[in-house]
Structures are given as structure tokens and as C-alpha cells.
């Protein structure tokens, strides 16, 4: 006999389940969407993942999520200036899509609430695995966001910036983006706000054949916010995707990156920096599937840890049996600046093909004393010299992005963080 005993629910689990009951009548969606929501809340009812769930081993969500704020319909958020001047900006203001939408040739913006009501988004609401707690939480509660469609062959000169701005309470949003065949664009996903919020945000990108996308996730939540985010993408034939993320805030952050190469010649680059300070917990978990032959990927993650911050990077690369000639390289380097900070790295390569090149490496270092001496010997005081070296450590990853306006914009975000935490 197999007895399944339900452990006692945590206050956070109870709050989420109760909130679902309260919110149900307000949540948009046709029958298909509502069925997905029901399935999703069932997943939550089974309990939030603990460290015994392998993919959540370093981020015991059940233990770490110790409070869930109520929804706060009165909280107001305002659109902010984009990181790159002249970007087309669409904003989600505390969970609701803004009425103002830019007019851009070859690009359509649709509120996600409409796609929920007509049910066309329903297939995208399925979780990607049994441990997909963020997907489940989002599917249960998602009320709005945007669907962005970039037509075939459209090459955007300026970035599209998608802002998710929270002002407190709970927000659950979704960004669905389709980039047509041969189209080129830079998309900025901006995650920030000023409340003690709980937010889930799921981004779903589909790239057509030969499309080229640089997707920048700039996360600067306040040190009171819980931010549970997921980025999912399928990379089609000869398409190129570069994802750059910068985590520079949040109390409890999990950023999942779930990518699959689905067409030969697909190329994926992941570049990211975690700037971790205070008493915070930040987890970046990547799952990359090389599902077809002749696809390539590289991942470079740089972390700076100060204070009592804890960081996690899990990088899992699955090379499927038929995915011959895969070339995948992953590196995770951490600069540990305090005795109380910590960073856990777990690279995982699961390779079923026999003709592949795959590798990974991880380092944890302190500031190089020779470098520090050299800078000081030129008159730079110790604090500034350390600042220069720490910034250099992460700026190297940013500079790889090539596009000068983007590099400058990201370095400005970096400077902001160093001003606040240097």
C-alpha cells in the first residue's frame, strides 16, 4: 500500500491557494485557459518545491518563500525611461498592460489579457516539467502582459523594451514574443519596481528561421521583492539568440532560462552577471536542449558576491542522441568579496550523442593582489582600485555584446549598482 501523506501547508502555500479562490472570478481566460489554471493550482497544492527536488536543491522555495503579500489593486506604477534612448517601450504597470502602445512598422503589440480571453495563448501555458513551480504559479494567476509579433524580415534599428514594473502586492505577467523568419531585433526585458512584491514573470520567445535576437533581461528589483522569472525559447533553423541577463536586486530571485535548439545551424549564447549584495538569494537555472544536429552554444556567467548574499547557477546542457556535431561551452566565474557571501555552481552535461564537443568550467576568486598593487602604484586609492577591478570582472561580459549603445546602457546600470553597493 502506498500512503501519500500531505505535509502541513506553509503560510505561503495557504496564502497562494486562498488567493486563487479569491481571484478566480477576476482572472481572464476562456474554458481552455481556465482548465490550465486549475491544473496549475493543483501543482501548487502539492506543495512548493523543496531542496529534495533536484532542480530546486539550492533554492528551497518552500522554506525561502515565507510570506506572500495580498494583491494590491490600488498600487500604481509608472513607466520609466528605457535603458537605450529611442527604444519602443511597452509597460506592464503593477500587473496590468498600459493603454499606451507604440506604433512601429512591422511590429504588433497585443495585450495578453485579450489572448487569454480568446484562448489563443492556452497551449503556451503548459508547464515544461513536473518541477516547473514558476510556470505553475504564473499559469494559475497570469492576468496580463503582452504579445509582440515582429513580422518576417523586419530589422529593427532600435530596441523594443518590455517593462514589468511592480509597485507592491502580487503581479503575474507573461510576455510572448514571436520573431519572424529573417527578422532582427534587440529586446529588453526590464524587471523592476519599488514594492515588497511577489511577482512571477514568464517570457516566451519563438524565433523563425534565420532570425537574430538579442534579449536583455535587466532585473533591478528592490531588496524586499520576490521575483520568480522564466525565459523560454525555441531556436529554429539558422537562427541566433543571445540572452544577456543582469541580476542586480531582489530579496529572493529565481531566473530560469529554458532553451531548445530545434533547427540545424541554431546558435545560442548566454551571457550574464549576478551582482549580489545584502541578505539576498539569487538563483539562475538554465536548461538547454541541443535537440538537433549541428547546433552551438556558449554560456558565460560572472558573479560578484558581497555582504551575506547567496547565489546559485545551475547550468544543464542536454545533448540529444541525434544531436551530433553539437558544440557547447559553459563557464561560471565568481568574485567573492566577503566572508559571509556564498555562490553555488552546478554544471550538468547530459550527452547522448557521441560526436560532440562539450565543456564547462567554474572558478571562485578574490581580487587579484598584483592587479590591485598595479592600480594603486598609479595613485588610485584602494577603494577605487577595487571598484575598477570588480567592475572590470563583469564588464568583460557586457563588452562582448558588441553593440556600443547597448554596452553603454548596461554599463550605466552597472555603475548605478556600484554607486549603491561599492
Amino acid at each position, binding site marked *: 500500500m502506498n500512503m501519500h501523506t500531505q505535509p502541513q501547508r506553509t503560510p505561503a502555500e495557504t496564502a497562494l491557494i486562498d488567493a486563487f479562490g479569491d481571484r478566480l472570478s477576476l482572472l481572464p481566460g476562456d474554458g481552455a485557459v481556465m482548465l490550465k489554471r486549475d491544473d496549475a493550482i493543483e501543482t501548487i497544492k502539492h506543495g512548493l518545491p523543496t531542496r529534495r527536488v533536484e532542480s530546486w536543491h539550492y533554492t528551497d522555495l518552500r522554506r525561502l518563500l515565507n510570506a506572500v503579500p495580498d494583491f494590491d489593486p490600488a498600487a500604481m506604477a509608472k513607466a520609466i525611461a528605457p535603458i537605450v534612448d529611442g527604444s519602443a517601450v511597452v509597460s506592464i504597470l503593477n500587473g496590468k498592460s498600459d493603454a499606451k502602445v507604440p506604433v512601429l512598422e512591422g511590429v504588433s503589440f497585443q495585450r495578453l489579457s485579450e489572448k487569454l480571453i480568446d484562448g489563443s495563448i492556452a497551449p503556451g501555458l503548459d508547464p515544461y516539467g513536473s518541477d516547473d513551480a514558476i510556470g505553475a504559479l504564473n499559469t494559475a494567476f497570469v492576468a496580463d502582459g503582452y504579445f509582440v509579433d515582429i513580422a518576417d524580415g523586419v530589422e529593427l534599428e532600435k530596441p523594443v523594451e518590455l517593462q514589468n514594473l511592480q509597485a507592491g502586492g502580487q503581479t503575474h505577467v507573461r510576455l510572448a514574443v514571436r520573431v519572424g523568419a529573417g527578422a532582427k531585433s534587440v529586446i529588453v526585458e526590464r524587471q523592476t519596481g519599488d514594492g515588497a512584491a511577489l511577482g512571477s514573470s514568464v517570457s516566451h520567445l519563438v524565433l523563425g528561421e534565420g532570425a537574430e535576437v538579442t534579449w536583455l533581461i535587466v532585473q533591478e528589483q528592490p531588496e524586499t521583492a520576490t521575483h520568480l522569472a522564466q525565459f523560454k525559447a525555441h531556436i529554429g533553423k539558422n537562427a541566433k539568440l543571445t540572452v544577456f541577463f543582469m541580476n542586480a536586486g531582489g530579496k529572493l530571485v529565481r531566473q530560469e532560462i529554458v532553451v531548445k535548439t530545434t533547427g540545424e545551424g541554431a546558435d545560442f549564447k548566454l551571457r550574464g552577471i549576478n551582482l549580489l549584495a545584502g541578505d539576498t538569494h539569487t538563483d539562475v537555472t538554465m536548461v538547454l536542449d541541443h535537440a538537433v544536429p549541428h547546433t552551438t552554444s556558449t554560456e558565460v556567467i560572472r558573479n560578484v558576491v558581497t555582504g551575506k548574499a547567496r547565489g546559485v547557477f545551475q547550468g544543464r546542457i542536454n545533448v540529444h542522441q541525434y544531436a551530433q556535431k553539437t558544440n557547447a561551452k559553459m563557464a561560471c566565474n565568481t568574485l567573492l568579496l566577503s566572508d559571509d557571501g556564498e555562490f553555488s555552481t552546478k554544471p550538468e552535461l547530459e550527452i547522448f550523442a557521441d560526436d560532440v564537443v562539450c565543456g564547462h568550467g567554474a572558478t571562485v576568486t578574490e581580487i587579484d593582489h598584483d592587479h590591485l598593487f598595479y592600480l*594603486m*602604484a*598609479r*595613485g588610485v586609492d584602494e577603494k577605487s582600485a577595487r571598484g575598477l*577591478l570588480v567592475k*572590470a*570582472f563583469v*564588464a568583460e561580459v557586457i563588452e562582448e555584446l558588441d553593440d556600443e549603445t547597448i554596452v553603454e546602457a548596461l554599463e550605466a546600470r552597472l555603475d548605478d549598482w556600484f554607486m549603491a553597493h561599492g
Partner: protein
Amino acid sequence: MLEIRNLHARIVDDGTEIIRGLNLTVKTGEVAAIMGPNGSGKSTLSYILAGREDYEVTEGDILYNGQSILEMDPAERATSGIFLAFQYPMEIPGVATMEFLKVAMNEQRKARGEEPLKIPEFLKRVKEAAASLSMDMAMLKRPLNVGFSGGEKKRAEILQMKLLEPKLCVLDETDSGLDIDALKIVSDGVNALRAPDRAFLVITHYQRLLEHIVPDTVHVLYKGQVIKSGDKSLALDLEANGYAGVIGEAA
């Protein structure tokens, strides 16, 4: 300008004593050459002057303009006018050379109570200095010393020296790794900086450099002590007869 009195110093890590009772005086405006065989403590002396923490002074003192510098950190020494041109300049990935030059120049100006340089003035000074050393500005857009050849690194050191306008310049084996043309360019760069209010400590293994940078005094360092001092003819003597004779005399 510089007075080193009975200096004893050791490596912090393993306690090995490298400098063993060194005495040396360098006057303002003087170019002093320090010569000596490998392992005599030449580079160690340069690091100790710059304030590297790997060495510990156990006895004696270093006076710069009459003040002890032993309690000063490397940045304080640099802003007070001491400059070390490294034998092996470090490659620092991620730090853009231009950005570094600007920070270093302005930090030194700040320490002297001067306003930061305006960008056009900064660029003008860098361009002039680079041109005088036959350096390509494109090189300065790269991260500091990264991918520079040995000669380029040495030129970059002299470029920094020019821009920072120090009062006491310590050149640690600046000639090593330079071909004849580069040696000429670097030496001309140094000679152009010779001034009545500036002193040089030129550390070298060979007389070759001293043909280009003619010293006022020459000091032979052996086993952490100055065992003989003289004028530039001492360098020629060493070149002709090697160190053995001088070492034998001192023993």
C-alpha cells in the same frame, strides 16, 4: 630627495631577507643607476619603494623629501610623486587603458587638490604623449596591457610616467625585452623627462641602457647592499670586467 638608511627587508611569506642594510642617497635632479647581478635585490628594492605588501621592512628607513614613506600605502606614495615603471607590467583584463589613464591622472590631481582634467585636455595630453613614444592610439583602446608585446608594455609604462609627471621615477629593468629601436624610443622618452626637480633610479642589469640614459651616479647592489658607488665610468668598468672584480673587492 631619496634617502635609504640601513634598510633591511624580507619576503612576508617565507621570511627570506633580501635587503640587508642598504644605504643610498639620490639627490633632486640626479639620475642614479642601480646595477647588480641577478638575485642581488634590485627588483625587490623597486617594489619596496612602491610599497608592495609582499615585502616587510624590518629595520632602517626610507626618507622621501625628508619624510618616512614606510607607513604610506602604494597609492599615497604614487600621489606624493613616486612612480615605478614595472619590469613586468600586469595585464588587467576588462580595464580599458584610456579609462585607467583618466582615473589615475584625476586621482593624482585630486590628491594634490587640483580639478579633474576636462575630457578634451585629457585626450590632448594622451595623444601628445603617445605620439612622442610612437604609440598607436588604437592600442590604448584595448584593456590595460592585454595582448601588448613586451616592448609595447614598456612604452605604456613610460607613457604613464609622462602623463603622471612624478618626481621620483624608479625604472625597473626598463630595457629588458626591448629591441634597439624600442630601446631608443623609450630612452628618449625618459631623457625628455629629465628635469632639475625630478630624480631617477634606473635599475638595470646591463650597461646598454646607460648608453642611452646617461647616469650621474652608479651603484652596485649585491646581496641586498650597495657595495660600490661611482660615476658612469663604473658602469663601463662593470661591462668590461664583470661583477666579480667589484664583489671580490668588497669581500
